[in-house]
C-alpha cells in the first residue's frame, strides 16, 4: 500500500455505484442525440463546426488568391470578389476564431477543473445550435448572390441603404448580431464554470493557465461584444427605418460606427489570442516536462492584456482625421500592450530552456507560432506608430501583419492543441509522421504566402482590389503568395485526411495521457468527466500527487457516484475552491435545441423581411425558452448529500452562492456595457453636431422625465415589497404591482418625446434608441416577473426555493437603474449644455 491515507471515500465502493454514474451521464441515442448536452460532445461538435467554417472561409481565400495570381485576371469579377473578401474575413473572425477557442473551452474546461460538466450545459447546447444553424445559413447567402460585400468591418456610409441597397448587408448585421449573442451565452457559462466548479483545493493560484486565459477571454467578451451588437442594431435601424445615426447630413456620423466597431474589434484580436496563448502555456510545460516558468507573471500578463486591449481601438482609425493628441494615447497603449505579450514569450522560452523539450508535432506548431507571432507582433509595433501607419494604411502590408498575428497567434496554437488534446477525446492520437508534413506545408506555405505581402504592400498595392495592372512590381510577389496559399491548403488537407483516419471520438476509451501531462483533463475519464472529483494540492496534480489517477478512477475521492440519482457537480468557492453545495444538473431535452433553431429562423426571416413568418418563429422560440426555464430551479427541500470525507453538502443555494446569481450579475454587466455604449453614442453625436441638440425651450418638458423617473423608482419599491412577501411565505404577487408602474414609466418617457421623430436627426434617432432599449429591458423584466408569479401559483416558488424570484428582482432593479440613467441623459443633458 503506497497510497496516501485518509482519502475521502473508502474502498470497496458499492457494486452498482459506477454503473449508475455511467448510465446517468450517457448521451441520448438515435434521433435524440441532437439533444445531447454533455460538454465532451458539444465541445467536439462545436470545434468541428468551427473547423468546417475555417475550411469554407479558407476555400474563399484560395479563390481570391487564384484571382490575384496574375494581373488583369478575369477569373472572378469585382461583385463576387467583394462578397468573397467580406465573407472570408467575417467567417474567419466570427464563425471560426471566436467559436473555435470558446469550443475548446467547453471541451476542456470541466475536465481540466475537475467538474462533471459546465454549470449550464443546456445553454452550451443552445449556443452551439444557434451558432451552427446561423453560420450555415449565413454562408449559404454566397450561393444566391446575397452575401454581404461591405468588408468584414462594414463601414457606413458604404453599407447604408443608399450605397448598398438589397439585403446583402442585412445578412451580416442580423446574422452577426445573432451569433454574438451566442458567444456571450458561452462566455457567461465559462466564467461561472471557472469560478465556481473547480475541484476542491484548486485555488486561484493553482488554476491551470488555460482556465485563467479563458476567464480573461470571457470577461472581455462580456464587455466588448455588446458594442458590436449595438452597432449592428443601430445600422440596421438606419437601413430599415432611416434613423440617421451614421448620416452626416442629418447630424449622424459614420465615424460613430468605427468607434463602436473597433471598441469591439480590437479586443476581439486578444479575445482570439489569449485562449491560444493559454493553450500554449499548457502544451509547452508538458512537452518540456517541467512546470511553466513564471506562472504568476503569465497570469499577470493575461489580466493586463485583457484590460490594455480595450485602449487600442483607435489605432484602426489613425487615418480618419482624429486629433494627434488623441491618436497618441492609442499609440502609447498599443506600445504598452507589447509588454505583457513579451512577458508570456519569455516565460515560454524559459520553460523550453529549463526542461527537456520533446519535439512532437504539438511542439513544432508551438515553435511555428513563436516565430510567426513574433514577426506579427513586430509589424504590430510598426503600425502602432502613427506616421508609419499612415503610409501603409489599407495596403497589403496590413494584410500581411494581421495574418501573421491571427494565423500565427491563433491558428498555429490551435493546430498544436488539436495534436496535443486529440488523445484526450479520441481513441487514437494523430499521426506524428503526417503531422510533420502538415506542419511543414503550413509553416512554409504560410511564410511563402504572407511574407511577400509586406513588400507588396510597401510597393503600394491596396487591399480589397479584385485585380491590378501588370508591371507595377506586384506581379511576381502575388504569384508567390498564391503558391504559398495553396501550400497551406495542402497541409490542411493532409490534416483532414489524418483526422478522418484516426479520430474516433471516445471519452472512456480515449488514448489517454500519452504526453505525460500534469493537469486534470488527463485523468482517466468518461462522459461524467472523472469517476470521483479529486482534491488538488498543486498546479500539476498528476505530476505531484502520486497515485492520483488510480485513486480517482477507483472512486476514492469526492462524489464517486451520483448522490441524488441525477447529474451533479460540486460547487466550490470562487477564490479558495472550498466545497459549498452540490448542483443538480439538467438532463438533455428538446427545448434548448428547438429554441436555438427557431431563434435562427426568426432572425433570418427578419433578414428576408418576411415578418409574418418571423413572428411565429419568434413566439415558438420564446415558448421553448419558457418551457426550458420552467423545468429549472429544482425543489429546495432536499436533505444534504454525503460526498465523502465527512462533507455533507446542501443541494440548494440562493444569493451569491447560487450559480444563477452569478449568471444574472454577468448578464447585468453585459447589459450595462451595451447601455454604456449607447450613452457614449449619444455624447459622441453631440460632440459632432451640438447644433442638433434642442435648447431648453424646445427640449422635452422636464415634468415628463421626472414623472417617468418617479414611476420607475416606485416600481423598484414594489419589487422590494414583493421581496418581503417572499421572505414571509414565498408570495411574490407584489410583483404585479410593479408591472403597471414600469409600463407607465416607459409610456410617459415616450410621451415626453412625442413631438420628436426618430428619422429627423441623429439626435432624435439616438434618443429613440435609448428609449427603445429601455422599453426592451422593461419588457424582459416584466416577462421575468410574470414568470416568477406564475411559478408561485404553480407551487414552484416558496420561501426557500426562490431563485427565479431573485433573478427577476435583480434584473428589475438593474432595469430601473438603467432607465434612470437614460432619463437623466435625455432630459438633463440638453439643459446642461444649452
Amino acid at each position, binding site marked *: 500500500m503506497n497510497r496516501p491515507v485518509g482519502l475521502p471515500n473508502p474502498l470497496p465502493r458499492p457494486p452498482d455505484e459506477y454503473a449508475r454514474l455511467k448510465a446517468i451521464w450517457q448521451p441520448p441515442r438515435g434521433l435524440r442525440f441532437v439533444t445531447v448536452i454533455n460538454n465532451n460532445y458539444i465541445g467536439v461538435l462545436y470545434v468541428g463546426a468551427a473547423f468546417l467554417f475555417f475550411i469554407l472561409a479558407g476555400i474563399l481565400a484560395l479563390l481570391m488568391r487564384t484571382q490575384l495570381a496574375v494581373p488583369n485576371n478575369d477569373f472572378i469579377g469585382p461583385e463576387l470578389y467583394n462578397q468573397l473578401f467580406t465573407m472570408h474575413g467575417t467567417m474567419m473572425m466570427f464563425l471560426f476564431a471566436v467559436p473555435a477557442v470558446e469550443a475548446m473551452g467547453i471541451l476542456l474546461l470541466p475536465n481540466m477543473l475537475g467538474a462533471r460538466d459546465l454549470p449550464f450545459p443546456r445553454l452550451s447546447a443552445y449556443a452551439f445550435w444557434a451558432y451552427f444553424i446561423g453560420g450555415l445559413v449565413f454562408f449559404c447567402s454566397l450561393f444566391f448572390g446575397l452575401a454581404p460585400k461591405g468588408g468584414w468591418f462594414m463601414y457606413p456610409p458604404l453599407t447604408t441603404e443608399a450605397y448598398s441597397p438589397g439585403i446583402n448587408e442585412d445578412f451580416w448585421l442580423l446574422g452577426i448580431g445573432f451569433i454574438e449573442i451566442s458567444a456571450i451565452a458561452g462566455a457567461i457559462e465559462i466564467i461561472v464554470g471557472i469560478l465556481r466548479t473547480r475541484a476542491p483545493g484548486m*485555488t*486561484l*493560484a493553482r488554476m491551470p493557465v488555460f482556465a485563467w486565459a479563458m476567464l480573461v477571454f470571457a470577461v472581455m467578451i462580456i464587455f466588448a461584444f455588446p458594442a458590436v451588437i449595438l452597432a449592428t442594431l443601430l445600422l440596421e435601424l438606419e437601413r430599415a427605418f432611416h434613423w440617421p445615426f451614421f448620416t452626416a447630413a442629418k447630424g449622424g456620423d459614420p465615424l460613430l460606427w468605427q468607434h463602436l466597431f473597433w471598441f469591439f474589434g480590437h479586443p476581439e484580436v486578444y479575445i482570439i489570442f489569449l485562449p491560444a496563448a493559454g493553450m500554449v502555456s499548457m502544451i509547452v510545460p508538458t512537452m518540456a516536462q517541467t512546470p511553466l516558468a513564471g506562472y*504568476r*507573471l503569465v*497570469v*499577470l500578463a493575461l*489580466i*493586463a492584456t485583457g*484590460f*490594455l486591449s*480595450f*485602449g487600442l481601438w483607435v489605432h484602426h482609425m489613425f487615418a480618419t482625421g482624429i*486629433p*494627434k*493628441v*488623441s*491618436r*497618441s*494615447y*492609442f*499609440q*502609447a*497603449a498599443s*506600445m*504598452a500592450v507589447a*509588454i*505583457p505579450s513579451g512577458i508570456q514569450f519569455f516565460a515560454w522560452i524559459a520553460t523550453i530552456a529549463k526542461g527537456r523539450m520533446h519535439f512532437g508535432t504539438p511542439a513544432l506548431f508551438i515553435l511555428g507560432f513563436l516565430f510567426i507571432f513574433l514577426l506579427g507582433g513586430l509589424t504590430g509595433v510598426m503600425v502602432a506608430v502613427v506616421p508609419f501607419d499612415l503610409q501603409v494604411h489599407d495596403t497589403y502590408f496590413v494584410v500581411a501583419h494581421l495574418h501573421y498575428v491571427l494565423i500565427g497567434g491563433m491558428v498555429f496554437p490551435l493546430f498544436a492543441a488539436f495534436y496535443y488534446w486529440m488523445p484526450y477525446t479520441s481513441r487514437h492520437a494523430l499521426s506524428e509522421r503526417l503531422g510533420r508534413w502538415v506542419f511543414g506545408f503550413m509553416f512554409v506555405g504560410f511564410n511563402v504566402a504572407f511574407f511577400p505581402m509586406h513588400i507588396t504592400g510597401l510597393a503600394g498595392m491596396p487591399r480589397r482590389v479584385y485585380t491590378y495592372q501588370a508591371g507595377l512590381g506586384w506581379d511576381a510577389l502575388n504569384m508567390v503568395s498564391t503558391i504559398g496559399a495553396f501550400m497551406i491548403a495542402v497541409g490542411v488537407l493532409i490534416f483532414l485526411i489524418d483526422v478522418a483516419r484516426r479520430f474516433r471520438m471516445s471519452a472512456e476509451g480515449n488514448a489517454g495521457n500519452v504526453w505525460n501531462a500534469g493537469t486534470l483533463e488527463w485523468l482517466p475519464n468518461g462522459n461524467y468527466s472523472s469517476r470521483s472529483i479529486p482534491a488538488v494540492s498543486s498546479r500539476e496534480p498528476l505530476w505531484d500527487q502520486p497515485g492520483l489517477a488510480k485513486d480517482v478512477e477507483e472512486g476514492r475521492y469526492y462524489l464517486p457516484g451520483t448522490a441524488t440519482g441525477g447529474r451533479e457537480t460540486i460547487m466550490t468557492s*470562487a*477564490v*479558495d475552491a472550498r466545497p459549498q453545495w452540490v448542483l443538480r444538473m439538467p438532463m438533455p431535452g428538446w427545448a434548448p435545441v428547438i429554441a436555438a433553431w427557431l431563434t435562427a429562423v426568426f432572425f433570418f426571416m427578419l433578414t428576408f423581411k418576411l415578418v409574418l413568418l418571423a413572428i411565429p418563429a419568434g413566439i415558438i422560440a420564446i415558448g421553448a425558452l419558457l418551457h426550458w426555464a420552467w423545468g429549472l430551479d429544482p425543489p429546495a427541500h432536499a436533505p444534504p448529500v454525503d460526498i465523502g470525507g465527512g462533507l455533507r453538502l446542501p443541494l440548494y443555494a440562493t444569493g451569491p452562492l447560487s450559480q444563477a446569481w452569478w449568471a444574472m450579475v454577468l448578464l447585468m454587466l453585459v447589459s450595462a456595457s451595451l447601455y454604456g455604449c449607447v450613452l457614449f453614442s449619444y455624447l459622441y453625436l453631440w*460632440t459632432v453636431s451640438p447644433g442638433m441638440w434642442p435648447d431648453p425651450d424646445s427640449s422635452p418638458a422636464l415634468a415628463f422625465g421626472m414623472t417617468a423617473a418617479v414611476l420607475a423608482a416606485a416600481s423598484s419599491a414594489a419589487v422590494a415589497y414583493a421581496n418581503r412577501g417572499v421572505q414571509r411565505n414565498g408570495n411574490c404577487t407584489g410583483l404585479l404591482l410593479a408591472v403597471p408602474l414600469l409600463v407607465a414609466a416607459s409610456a410617459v418617457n415616450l410621451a415626453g418625446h412625442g413631438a420628436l421623430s426618430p428619422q429627423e436627426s441623429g439626435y432624435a434617432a439616438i434618443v429613440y434608441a435609448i428609449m427603445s432599449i429601455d422599453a426592451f429591458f422593461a419588457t424582459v423584466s416584466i416577462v421575468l416577473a410574470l414568470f416568477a408569479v406564475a411559478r408561485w401559483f404553480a407551487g414552484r416558488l416558496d420561501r426557500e426555493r426562490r431563485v427565479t424570484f431573485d433573478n427577476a428582482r435583480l434584473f428589475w432593479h438593474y432595469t430601473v437603474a438603467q432607465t434612470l440613467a437614460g432619463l437623466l441623459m435625455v432630459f438633463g443633458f440638453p439643459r446642461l449644455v444649452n
Partner: protein
Amino acid sequence: MHALWISSGIVVWALHFTALYGLTALACARGHGEAVPWIVAFATAIAAVVAAGILVKGYRGRSAFIEWMTMSVAALALLGIAYEATAGLLSPLCE
C-alpha cells in the same frame, strides 16, 4: 469580492485613459486646447496616487497569490499611466 482587487490597479489605468481621451476630445471640440496639459497633469496625478495606494495596500492581503497579483497589476498599471501621460504631454495640441 476580495479577488476583484486583483484588477483594481488596471481599472485605474482604464479610468485614467478614458479621462484623458474623453476630456481631451471634449476640450479640443470646444476650442479649449490650452487646457489639455492641465487635464493630463491633473488626471495623471490622481491616477498615479490611487494606483500607488493600491500597490501599497497589496501588502496587506490575506492570500499570498492575490496580494502579489494585486501589487504587480498595479505596478504595470503605473507604467501604463506613465505611457499615456507622456503621450498626452508631448503631442501637439488639438491638431
